[in-house]
């Protein structure tokens, strides 16, 4: 299973293995990683699973749909080039070793 490192909203690192097909958001919530709220439960409608993706992996991500793009505009923490919604990124083998940073605010 691909290994993912989360840096939570307090700056603590957590290394977890996630099954293929799980989302970054699900991995965070189910492993009790602080800072991902995921209010809507993964329906791409609340922008409370906003996270920053490690630079090296940006071109390995699934493409962003218009809905995610719109929701990110409303995220509380600043949107950057590395911003994605955790619920819209599914784990693939290409993401093994990924580092995900969680903003202080959602």
């Amino acid at each position, binding site marked *: 299973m691909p290994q993912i490192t989360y840096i939570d909203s307090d700056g603590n690192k957590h290394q977890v293995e996630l099954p293929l097909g799980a989302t970054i958001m699900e991995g965070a919530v*189910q*492993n009790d990683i602080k800072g991902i709220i995921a209010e*809507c*439960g*993964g*329906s*791409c409608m*609340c922008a409370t699973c906003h996270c920053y993706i490690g630079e090296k992996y940006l071109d390995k991500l699934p493409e962003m749909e218009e809905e995610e793009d*719109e929701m990110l505009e409303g995220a509380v923490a600043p949107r950057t080039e590395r911003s994605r919604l955790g619920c819209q990124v599914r784990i693939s083998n290409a993401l093994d070793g990924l580092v995900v940073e969680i903003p202080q605010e959602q």
Partner: protein
Amino acid sequence: MLLPLLVPNIPPNSNPMKKNVIIIGAGHAGIQAAASLREEGFEGSICIFSEDADFPYQKPPLSKGYLDGSQQKNSIMFRSEAWYENNQVELKLGELVVKVDISQKTVHATSGEYAFDFLVFATGAYNRELPIPIKGTDQPLYLRTMKDADCLKEALDQEGVQDILVIGGGFIGLEVAAYAAKSGKKVTVVEYQPRLMQRVLPPMLSEHFAAKHQAYGVDLRMGVGVQDLTQDSKWLASLSTGESVTADQVIVGIGVLPSQVLAQEAGIRCSNGIEVNAYCETSVAGIYAIGDCALHPNPFAKGQMVRLESVQNAVDQAKVIASTICGKPSSYHQCLGFGRTNITSNYKWPVYPKAMTNSSSEEM
């Protein structure tokens, strides 16, 4: 561990961080309350009673990703089983609380009596039922639980099911209509009010969503009531206009009512919801109500009493009571808002406080 009431007169524990909390309800409010209590360092026992036998899951995706198959059962769970174990949050699933005794500070459940120092009502809401004559061997379908969603999906995906009647042009009705229309069904939506989602949306957005649905071929009948439903080989609905609509399946989403009977029978003050103050405390000290079932004074509605069915409200109120129970009283003062998926559009809508103070949910 929760102690059944076999040992009377346990000396009261003065440290609030070590008392017993019972939470009734395992939706967003209930689960968040448990999580926030532990985050605040609460060391006492936490026990959650849930009528629903399914492992605690999130309800919003039931009418969205779960219905269309893009989200599976395990991806809509709140927390893993390990989380409940590690955080010593006891789950009593499929267990009905039948009575709350506020003088003894106990809840009576199907498996026995349990003592609490703090009690949290996170009981949510239940579906309003169609108040019209219904004749048929089947019943129209409603959506609230995961089980309902499974039944609904099975019914809609059945071969030969082509004509769908949705009664109620609110969130649930329109989300189900969107799913059915996208899967190629012929969908009619009947809404009693003159426009869609009138209670929570301004006219401009109602029109926007009406146009989106119509573009998918949904037949919207606004300002129309259903007078009776009869099932023969198909369902036949007689409308207030004198017309009728036939359908293979009928889905009803005409709003919800707060689940407050337990509180009411215990002598806790209720009206359109369990009444709480700014700390989400009910008329009885140490007993709280949060989420869909709580009627709270909201500063953004000029202090009027508001009962809101939204995740944000449930989660924020849960945090409020967690810190209050841990001896750091905090009050609820959030602006009202919620998000919903609809055909191709996502919004986080600010809610009209005026509309939210109406005494009932979406009218039929």
